[in-house]
């Protein structure tokens, strides 16, 4: 069905289609619309999930963990301070191999209080063992949320998935949305280690180094298998519903001499910049990174690369720029832009490409090259 929806409403609509057994969540700007819409679905009887209006995000994730281990599908949504507040449980969910799906509406972190888009919140959970996907349109928010359940619950993955969408620039903008009837694309969840009172065992007890190490390796092994599962799920989704996704979304990249790499809505904005630059005779392309964990293999040989980071690791550099440098060996032009919701237009992005100097870092709107 074709409708108009915000990014938040699209996520809620996908959750409705996925029919989780339990949803536990706590409101925070700009995620609120997701939890409100889900509460309405439940109140109206359109969704039969147990909705637990917990008293904090730490409890939201703890409740999802308790529910997930019974073998039921679970969902939560948060943002920024909420995500940081649940951090301990974010680790726990992955370590416990629970296929929880969480929407994170990307927002900056205080102080000062700032509710606008930034990716620092998601990156602060980088090493927790969650898969992380970044989306750029309302439709993609919907599709990625549906696929997230299938990927997380796949027996070769069994890890939680975080669907990241930019606060306001995606969560609150209206675009057309084609909803689907999910059918058997999403079969009932099967958790091999679900609690069974007939087969009592201890979950997460004291564990010595040898076994602990094996459990950690097992998470990494699944992370390494995940790209194959993701590709399979995205291919099946494309065949069934006609929309195709991959680890990156490439726009005019084939013959490009210079690539812009960014996440979320900035990656989409870059496509317009590419058209502007092409009109000037600059062979630019946009490679919007969708999956951040597991980090995809990228072939960037022989091209210049401009990486836009809507985040910063203080004392180190842009997280995305450094990830790309260490994964591919290229020396990108690292642009720090959009912090705290700073506006970054396609003209600005075209400027980044025009001024690019490989191996340097540029803070947009502050002091130029550093």
């Amino acid at each position, binding site marked *: 069905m074709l409708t108009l929806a915000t990014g938040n409403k699209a996520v809620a609509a996908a959750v409705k289609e996925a029919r989780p057994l339990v949803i536990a969540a706590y409101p925070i700007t700009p995620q609120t619309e997701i939890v409100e819409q889900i509460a309405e679905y439940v109140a109206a009887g359109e969704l039969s999930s147990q909705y637990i209006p917990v*008293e*904090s995000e730490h409890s939201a994730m703890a*409740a999802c963990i308790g529910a997930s*281990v*019974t*073998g039921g599908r*679970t969902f939560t949504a948060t943002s920024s301070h909420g995500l940081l507040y649940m951090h301990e*449980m974010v680790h726990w969910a992955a370590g416990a191999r629970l296929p929880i799906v969480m929407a994170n509406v990307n927002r900056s972190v205080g102080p000062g209080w700032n509710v606008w888009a930034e990716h620092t919140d998601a990156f602060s959970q980088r090493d927790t063992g969650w898969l992380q996907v970044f989306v750029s349109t309302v439709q993609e928010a919907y599709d990625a949320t549906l696929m997230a359940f299938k990927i997380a619950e796949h027996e070769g993955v069994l890890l939680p998935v975080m669907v990241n969408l930019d606060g306001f620039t995606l969560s609150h903008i209206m675009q057309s949305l084609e909803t689907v009837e999910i059918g058997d694309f999403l079969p009932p969840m099967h958790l091999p280690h679900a609690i069974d009172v007939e087969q*009592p065992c*201890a979950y997460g007890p004291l564990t010595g180094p040898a076994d602990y190490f094996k459990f950690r390796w097992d998470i990494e092994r699944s992370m390494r298998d995940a790209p194959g599962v993701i590709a399979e799920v995205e291919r099946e989704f494309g065949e069934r519903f006609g929309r195709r996704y991959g680890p990156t979304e490439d726009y005019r990249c084939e013959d490009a001499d210079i690539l812009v790499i960014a996440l979320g809505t900035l990656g989409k904005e870059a496509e317009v910049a590419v058209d502007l630059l092409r009109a000037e005779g600059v062979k630019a392309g946009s490679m919007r990174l969708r999956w951040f964990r597991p980090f995809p293999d990228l072939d960037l040989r022989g091209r210049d690369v401009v990486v836009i980071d809507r985040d910063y690791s203080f004392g180190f550099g842009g997280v995305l720029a450094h990830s790309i440098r260490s994964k591919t060996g290229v020396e990108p032009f690292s642009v720090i832009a959009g912090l705290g919701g700073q506006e970054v237009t396609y003209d600005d992005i075209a400027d980044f490409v025009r001024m690019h100097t490989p191996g340097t870092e540029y803070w947009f709107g502050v002091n130029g090259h550093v």
Partner: protein
Amino acid sequence: MTEIRKEEFILKCTSACAGCGGSLCLRYVLKAAGPDTVLVVPACCTSVIQGIYPATAVNIPVYNIAFAAAAACASGMSSAFRALGRKTNVIAYAGDGGTVDIGIQALSGAFERGTDFLYICYDNEAYGNTGMQRSGATPLGARTTTTPGGKPTTKKDLDRIVEAHDPPYMATACSAYPLDLYKKVKRALGIPGPKFIHILAPCPPGWRFPAEQTVEMGKLAVKSGMWVLYEREYGSLTISAPSKAAMRKPVPLEEYIRRQGRFRGITDAALTELRHQADLNLRRLTREAEGIC
């Protein structure tokens, strides 16, 4: 007379200290709950007592969870089980630190939401797992590793906090009265909604008394009136038999205090204050039981 189930769910290989009141309680809690039960355990001595992976000393599923998260995790689990049409008992079994301090927000939230579960706080009056630091439940004057001169403030009144949530069932118990505990757990599990049991669990290394005196120490706590056994079902309070007996012929508080190394050097003022609070508590409870509150 109540028949206590013969079946054991705590196997003979726990790593509890000798004379551990907390694991004694768990044994009776699980006997009362039976095999269709999941225990949710935050960081505490009970996380250690279970043994080391892949061995376990508990013969029902135990879900270990982060320190602050027992009530919230149990909340999600209970919702899921009920949605799946299963009656499985969900019991959060947490220490006093995981209850009165770091876990109180999750506990309050779960009770306010009417979660169908039983929350048990076994109270050894300090952080046992990490080597006996003070908790909010440590009594006035007790020495812990972070209150080397004796705790300067009084024990947080957890029961009045829980009572403010108006749960359908709440009770106190003590490891020295296993039959009383057993009956209370059975009673609690027969009632829908959030239930709460607060168990005093003497801890020989923490309280500094010989390991063979755990039962005696629990009895002295009750007989001296420091710990009052009662249950409150749908708002109606009954003082339990051992405490009723103690009220008729109380043992002097010093009997209880003197036997524990943690109270060594306690000041007269602190002792007077402890006595005053015990009296106040007992008076409040008896008035409520008699319907004069």
